[in-house]
C-alpha cells in the first residue's frame, strides 16, 4: 500500500525542513520526502494549501483507565488524541490502581493493546500509590516499559525521597516529571491567590506553592546531575527559575499547557468550573512570561494536561468541583490561534514544542518525518476556523475551557502508522 501526500507545506524541524513537497508512505513507514515524487500510489492526497506535520506527541495526558472509565477510557482518550492530531500520548500514572508496579503496567499494556487508537506510552509512579511515602520499584517500571516516572497530581514532599527517586531515574535513563506543588503552601486553594481569589471569596493558590517546589527540584537535579522535567509550568517565577537553571547547565526541561498561554484568572470570575485546574489560571504577566518562555526556548514543550471529568464532578459548587480540563482536541488549534497568529512561534518551533521535544525528552522515536520512521503524520488547514462544540468531542468528558471559542486550525487528516484514521 502506497499513499502519496502531494503539495503540502511540510514542516519537520528534526530535518530542518519547511517547504512545499511530497511525502510517500509505504506500508507503515515514510519512504520518501521530496519535491514532485513520481510514483503510482494506491491513494493520493492533495494537500495544497495545507501544512503537514509529524503527529503530535502529548506528554501529559490522563486517560483515566483503569479505574475511572466513566471519565475516559484508553479507547475514548486516544480517539480524542487522533482527532486533535496527537498520535502519541504519555499516560499519567494516577489511575486506580496507580502505575506503581510492573503488574499494574502490564494490566494497562493489555488494555492499550486491545483498545488504543494512538500510541500510548506509560508514565510510572515515583512512589507507591503516589503517596510520597515509599519509592516504587523504578527499575522494574522501566523494565516493564515505562518511559517516565511522575507522581503527577502530587509532589514528592520529602527532599530525601525525591533525591533517591532522581538517582534512580538518572541511572535508569528515564525522565522524572515533577508536579511542582508544595501543598502546605497551596493550602486547599482553588484559584490563583490575589485579587481574583479575594473577589470570588475563594481560597487562593499562591505562586510560591509552585515556584518554590520548582526551585527545590531544580536544585536537586543540579546536585545529582540528573535530568528533570517540570510539568505544567503556569507562572512567571517558575519560568525564571528554569531559565536560570538552564543557563547554569542543569538538565532541566519543562512544559506548559495551552490554557496557561491563552487564559488568565479573569476567566474564573463567573465561577466557571471549566476554568478550574491545578495549577490555576494566573495573571496577565504570567501569561506573558509563559509566551516569552516558549519563544526564547526556556519552555521546551506544550502538553495538554488532558484531565477529563464527568459533568457530575464539574457542574457543582466551584469549591467542590474537580480540578482539571480536557485539551487533546483543542491544543493544536489553541496553539495556532494564540502562538502562530500572534507570531510568538513559527510553525517549526511549534512542531518542536508539540512533537519533537517531547519525543526527545521521553527518548521515543517520534516527532519527525524522517525517511524510515513510522508514518505518523497530520495534515492541517491552519487557516480554517471552527467553533468548539461540546457535542463534537470524541472524549467522554466535555470539561473544556475553550467551549464556544473561535479557534483557527483544523486537523483534516491524522495518519497513524500509515493508516488514515
Amino acid at each position, binding site marked *: 500500500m502506497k499513499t502519496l501526500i502531494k503539495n503540502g507545506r511540510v514542516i519537520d524541524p528534526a530535518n530542518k525542513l519547511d517547504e512545499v513537497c511530497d511525502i510517500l508512505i509505504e506500508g507503515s513507514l515514510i519512504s520518501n520526502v521530496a519535491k514532485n515524487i513520481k510514483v503510482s500510489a494506491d491513494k493520493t492526497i492533495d494537500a495544497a494549501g495545507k501544512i503537514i506535520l509529524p503527529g503530535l506527541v502529548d506528554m501529559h495526558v490522563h486517560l483515566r483507565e483503569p479505574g475511572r472509565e466513566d471519565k475516559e477510557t484508553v479507547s475514548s482518550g486516544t480517539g480524542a488524541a487522533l482527532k486533535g492530531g496527537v498520535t502519541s500520548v504519555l499516560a499519567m500514572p494516577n489511575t486506580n490502581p496507580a502505575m506503581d508496579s510492573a503488574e499494574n503496567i502490564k494490566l494497562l499494556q493489555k488494555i492499550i493493546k486491545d483498545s488504543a487508537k494512538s500510541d500510548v506510552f506509560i508514565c510510572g509512579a515515583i512512589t507507591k500509590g503516589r503517596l510520597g511515602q515509599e519509592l516504587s520499584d523504578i527499575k522494574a517500571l522501566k523494565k516493564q516499559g515505562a518511559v517516565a516516572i511522575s507522581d503527577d497530581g502530587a509532589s514528592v514532599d520529602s527532599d530525601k525521597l525525591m533525591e533517591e527517586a532522581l538517582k534512580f531515574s538518572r541511572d535508569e535513563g528515564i525522565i522524572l516529571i515533577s508536579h511542582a506543588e508544595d501543598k502546605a503552601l497551596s493550602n486547599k486553594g482553588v484559584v490563583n*491567590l*490575589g*485579587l*481574583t*481569589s*479575594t*473577589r*470570588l*471569596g*475563594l481560597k*487562593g493558590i499562591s505562586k510560591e506553592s509552585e515556584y518554590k517546589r520548582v526551585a527545590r527540584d531544580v536544585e536537586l537535579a543540579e546536585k545529582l546531575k540528573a535530568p528533570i522535567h517540570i510539568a505544567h509550568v503556569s507562572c512567571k517565577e517558575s519560568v525564571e527559575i528554569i531559565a536560570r537553571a538552564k543557563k547554569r547547565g542543569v538538565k532541566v526541561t519543562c512544559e506548559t499547557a495551552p490554557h496557561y498561554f491563552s487564559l488568565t484568572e479573569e476567566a474564573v470570575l*463567573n*465561577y466557571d468550573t471549566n476554568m478550574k485546574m491545578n495549577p490555576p489560571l494566573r495573571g496577565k504577566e504570567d501569561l506573558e512570561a509563559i509566551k516569552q518562555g516558549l519563544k526564547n526556548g526556556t519552555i521546551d514543550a506544550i502538553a495538554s494536561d488532558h484531565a477529563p471529568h464527568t459533568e*457530575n464532578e464539574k*457542574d*457543582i*459548587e*466551584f*469549591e*467542590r468541583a474537580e480540578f482539571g480540563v480536557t485539551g487533546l482536541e483543542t491544543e493544536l488549534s489553541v496553539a495556532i490561534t494564540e502562538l502562530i497568529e500572534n507570531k510568538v512561534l513559527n510553525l517549526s518551533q511549534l512542531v518542536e514544542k508539540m512533537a519533537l521535544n517531547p519525543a526527545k525528552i521521553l527518548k521515543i522515536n517520534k516527532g519527525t518525518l524522517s525517511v524510515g520512521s513510522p508514518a505518523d503524520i497530520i495534515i492541517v488547514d491552519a487557516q480554517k476556523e471552527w467553533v468548539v462544540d461540546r457535542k463534537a468531542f470524541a472524549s467522554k468528558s466535555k470539561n473544556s475551557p475553550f467551549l464556544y471559542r473561535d479557534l483557527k486550525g483544523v486537523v483534516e487528516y491524522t495518519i497513524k502508522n500509515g493508516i488514515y484514521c
Partner: protein
Amino acid sequence: MIWKRKDLLGLEELSREELEFILSTAESFKEVSTREIKKVPALRGKTVVNLFYEPSTRTRVSFEVAAKRLSADVINIATETSSVKKGETLIDTGRNIEALKADIIVMRHNYSGAAAMLARHVNLSVVNAGDGWHEHPTQALLDIFTLKEKLGKIDGIKVSIIGDIAHSRVARSNIWGLTKLGAKVTVCAPKMLIPPGIEEMGAQVTDDIDKALNNADAVNVLRMQFERDESNAFPQQLEYFKNYGITEERLEKAKKNIVVMHPGPINRGIEMSSEVADGANSVILEQVTNGIAVRMSVLFLVAQANEFIKKNEDAD
C-alpha cells in the same frame, strides 16, 4: 429606570444607578412597616422560598418578614450542608423548587459562587443571602441604607470596616457598594485577616484601629468568627479585644457622631464593648429594621424584572 435583573447575586456587578434605585425603592417600602396593617399586595400570589444551607436566624427572619409584608407566601427550607454531599445537587434542588412554581429563591450557602451557579440553571429569581466568603448583598444594602439615613448621603463619607475581612462576605459587599456610591472605605484588621487585592477593590488598608477610627464618619464592626480559624493564626480573643475592640475610650478620640454598625450577632466584649453596642452612636437595631425595607425592595424588584422578562419572551 426599569429594573432588569431577575437575580441579586452581589453588589460587584451593580452600577451606581442600580444601587441608588434599590435604595430609593427601599425608602418607599420603609413606611409599610409603620402602618397599623403592615402589608402591601405587591407580591400577592408569589411564592418565596428561603433555602438556607447555613444556620441563620436574623437574615432568614428578615427575608421572611419582608416577603410577608409584600403579601408573598413564604416557605423555609433549612438544609444541613453535610446532606448535600450524599443527597441532591444544588441544581436539582433549584429545579425542584422551580417545579413547585415558586417565584424567588432566597439562598444562604456556605460555598462562594453557589448563588451564581443556581441562577444560571433556573429561570426563577435568585437572591443571594450570603454565599461563602463572597458576597452578602442585602446586608451591605441595609448598611448603606442606614448610613444614608443617618448621614444624609454616601458620596464622600468615610467608612471603616473592622474585623476579619479575609473571610467576610459582608466586607466585600460593603466595599463594592460603598465605593461605587462614592464613599471612602478603609478596612482594618490584623494583617493575616486582610486578603490580597483589597486595595485594587478600592479600599484602603490599615492594621491600626486608631487610624481607622480617626476621622471616620462610620464604623462597621464585623463579627469575629474564631471557630473558622484552621491555622490558629488568629489573635486570641482577649488580645483581639485589646487591640481592635471598639470601646468608649477609643470612640472618645473619634468623631463625636460616628455611626457604629454591626451586622450581628454581636460577640460582646470581643468586637465591641457592651457600652458601645448599646450606646448613643450605635444604630445596630435600626439596621435590623431597615433590613426589612431593603429586602422588600430587592424581592419586589427581582420579581418585577422576572415578570418583565417572561412577558417579553412570550411576545417573541
